[in-house]
């Protein structure tokens, strides 16, 4: 048999269509499998207004099956005389059978009542109405309510087609009863009654709806390629744009339009943003790769009145490009210095001063980072220059109109103004990564600028107690902290963030840039905030939870050191001896965490050889240099026999206070190197 399910909706957002269709198909397949209703294949169809499945080779009914049902134990089911108890009678009756059908079988030494039951499979028509729950279980990135209902869905449902061959399988969602009527193209078609499920694709084609997304995409591609070859253009069929356009139309017709060649003087990135991002057009180049003054759009309709459609689209694009050209020319009438001066009138946040104040802080922060990352003289100069101007494009007309070009325009205008390559690149990279997993800055100066900007944002917001909680993170501070963590992870240079905060605050205070805010009082909260992001990064890299917990339990978050510690521990944990090493090292950690002691160790107070041995070994660890390398961890694990011998032969908590303190000092000295790798007591043995 063949079954058609179509959900008719008000237009869905384009990006929702494909994933929702896949979800509907997967959940339907799971439902049929669960119901043991066989099928050959599920065909998937969707347009902005509909999600549909056509199930081929659907079994008319579930297979008949035999079930062995277990009832009460024999001793409960029958008395000594072999009379059936109420329990036994009730059990058989509940299954629509009688005590004559009872058999006994042994399960784990006890005899039980069993019924052997032949169950006739249910018919497809009886099972398919259950799909209503599958529809209701779909999840979407956004949901909405409509009319007076509490039910939520991606958009309001207007019709449902549910046809098993030629029979309607009833189901209902809110006020919508499933039937056999579907809707044609909004302007070119009509409602149409389907005689059979198999009519679906053909009947809708007759109503100017191409329900197969792959077919639509192929048609759009062919049409665009035809236009390109007629005009001798090269067109980049951007995959994401094609997918989006495909899910905006039910009946595509591509067309070419043009704009005045004078607009080609506008930077390419602006032209592309206008055409591709704002208007969903494909742009074109000539055979030499030069952009041409034309575009290709896709209409949801046929070729009728196409001149009108082209003229309308040209008018809209021209208006956009006219604005862009105006802003582009206007913006160049002023120097970067003019724009920077205006930034003192633009507030960053009312508690945190102007954008000029922010840039001043970022310059201070950048100079500290430059030293940490051993930037050369030229790099340091470039970073200072970039940090001193990088927000200037926010007051240009172009960014006012095309906000998504922030940073990009800064780089473009800086290049026109003759700034050097490194400064230009850094300005273009300042916002990176722009999403959790987005690309990181490629240049060194860009990395440090992006990092300094984000550090300032985080420290400043934390200083005025604006700390994200729950889903409340209006300034996207989590994403910015995660960006810093990812940059540091890529950079592989250790940078203890608590220590860094201390250094930055000192410099900001000396430069008089804290404006009376206390940057210190939420330092702990920011440390923890960073540790959480480091955990997130490690978890996304599938580091096991115990290792993540162990290495992030350090007093001073250090991305590279913690990642390296996690790698070292993950590798070490695979060895057989790991358990033994871990026991020895954590024994030291446990005793010292309860008994902190500082100061020099006095060998005069040693009472046995093992003390002397451990002492010499610990002395040799002094060149660890804070690095969580595999070599350093191996040097620690090499101490296992010495540590074990020490604990065997030495009573730490000696009666003589001087001897006891001396031993605790030794162990504490050792523990400081062990805890470099985090809290090893959290690692699973």
């Amino acid at each position, binding site marked *: 048999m063949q079954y058609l399910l179509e959900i008719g909706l008000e237009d869905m957002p384009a990006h929702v269509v494909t994933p929702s269709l896949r979800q509907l198909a997967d959940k339907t397949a799971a439902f049929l499998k669960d119901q043991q209703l066989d099928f050959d294949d599920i065909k998937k169809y969707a347009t902005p207004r509909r999600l549909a499945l056509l199930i081929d080779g659907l079994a008319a009914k579930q297979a008949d099956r035999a079930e062995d049902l277990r009832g009460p134990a024999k001793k409960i089911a029958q008395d000594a005389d072999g009379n059936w108890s109420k329990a036994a009678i009730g059990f058989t009756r509940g299954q629509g059978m009688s005590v004559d059908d009872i058999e006994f079988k042994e399960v784990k030494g006890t005899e039980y009542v069993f019924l052997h039951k032949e169950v006739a499979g249910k018919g497809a028509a009886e099972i398919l109405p259950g799909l209503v729950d599958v529809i209701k279980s779909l999840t979407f990135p956004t949901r909405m309510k409509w009319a007076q209902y*509490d039910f939520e869905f991606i958009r309001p449902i207007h019709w449902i087609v549910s046809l098993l061959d030629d029979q309607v399988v009833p189901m209902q969602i809110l006020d919508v009863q499933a039937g056999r009527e579907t809707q044609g193209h909004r302007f070119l078609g009509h409602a149409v009654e389907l005689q059979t499920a198999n009519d679906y694709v053909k009947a809708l084609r007759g109503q100017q709806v191409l329900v197969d997304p792959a077919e639509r995409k192929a048609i759009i591609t062919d049409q665009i390629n035809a236009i390109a070859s007629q005009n001798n253009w090269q067109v980049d069929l951007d995959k994401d744009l094609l997918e989006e356009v495909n899910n905006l139309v039910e009946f595509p017709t591509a067309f070419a339009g043009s704009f005045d060649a004078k607009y080609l003087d506008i930077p390419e990135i602006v032209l592309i943003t206008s055409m591709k991002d704002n208007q969903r057009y494909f742009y074109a180049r000539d055979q030499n790769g030069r952009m041409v003054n034309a575009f290709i759009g896709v209409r949801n309709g046929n070729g009728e009145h196409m001149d009108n459609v082209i003229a309308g*689209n040209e008018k809209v694009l021209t208006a956009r490009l006219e604005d862009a050209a105006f802003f582009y020319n206007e913006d160049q009438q002023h120097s970067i210095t003019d724009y920077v001066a205006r930034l003192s009138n633009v507030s*960053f*946040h009312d508690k945190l001063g102007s954008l000029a104040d922010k840039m001043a802080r970022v310059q201070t922060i950048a100079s500290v980072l430059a030293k940490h990352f051993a930037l050369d003289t030229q790099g340091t100069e470039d970073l200072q220059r970039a940090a001193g101007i990088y927000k200037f494009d926010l007051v240009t007309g172009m960014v006012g109109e095309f906000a998504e070009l922030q940073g990009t325009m800064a780089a473009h205008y800086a290049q026109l103004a003759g700034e050097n390559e490194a400064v230009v690149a850094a300005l273009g990279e300042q916002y990176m990564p722009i999403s959790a997993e987005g690309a990181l800055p490629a240049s060194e100066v860009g990395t440090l600028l992006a990092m300094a900007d984000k550090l300032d944002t985080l420290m400043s917001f934390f200083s005025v107690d604006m700390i994200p909680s729950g889903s409340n993170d209006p300034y996207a501070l989590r994403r910015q902290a995660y960006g810093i963590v990812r940059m540091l992870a890529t950079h592989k240079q250790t940078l203890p963030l608590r220590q860094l905060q201390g250094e930055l605050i000192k410099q900001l205070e000396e430069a008089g840039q804290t404006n009376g805010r206390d940057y210190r009082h939420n330092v702990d909260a920011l440390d923890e905030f960073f540790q959480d992001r480091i955990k997130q990064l490690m978890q996304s890299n599938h580091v096991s939870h115990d290792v993540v917990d162990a290495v992030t339990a350090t007093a001073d978050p250090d991305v590279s050191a913690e990642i390296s510690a996690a790698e070292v521990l993950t590798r070490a944990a695979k060895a057989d001896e790991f358990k033994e090493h871990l026991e020895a090292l954590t024994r030291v950690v446990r005793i010292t965490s309860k008994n902190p002691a500082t100061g020099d160790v006095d060998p005069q107070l040693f009472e046995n050889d093992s003390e002397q041995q451990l002492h010499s070994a610990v002395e040799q660890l002094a060149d660890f240099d804070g690095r969580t390398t595999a070599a350093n961890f191996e040097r620690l694990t090499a101490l296992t026999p010495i540590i074990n011998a020490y604990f065997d032969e030495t009573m730490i908590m000696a009666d003589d206070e001087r001897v006891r303190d001396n031993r605790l000092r030794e162990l504490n000295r050792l523990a400081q190197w062990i805890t470099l790798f985090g809290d090893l007591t959290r690692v699973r043995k």
Partner: protein
Amino acid sequence: MGCAGVGWEVWLDGMEVSQFTYFQVVGGLEVSPVTSEITYGVERLASYIQDVKSVFDLEWGDGVKYGDIFKEPEYEHSKYAFEESNQDMLLDFFNAYEKEAWRLMDLGLVHPAYDYILKCSHTFNLLDARGAVSVTERAGYLSRIRKMAHKVARAFVAERKKLGFPLLDHADAETTEAK
């Protein structure tokens, strides 16, 4: 104003001619039944029907163009909003309107309070047009306005409840109360 909804930009031949929204939340309160909103668009549709390139060339009435009536005000408002507005004054106004809105809400004067919240919103738009508000700070201003909108919406519902929801039929009034 503490509103949230989903809906569409409505495009005609590449031009956004309107927006259609199903409100889900107004003033921080979930709405039921769901209301919908259709925004601007008459001029844009008219520009297609009359086949003119600029809105100012639309025929407004007999021999009178849209531009004859609106072009000069548009120019003056643009000049003011983008170049001449007094930022310090507007910031003071925003704070004063905000203070007044809260004071009126405390007095239970819902409608005057609402007017002051609208004034805050308008003043914010002027500050924003002038580029006096950074992207970061926008969120802060919007949240101040939203807080007031939430409060006044709750006060409005409370006021209607006191009156027994006179414009709702009985069943709707009960569910509204339950929510």
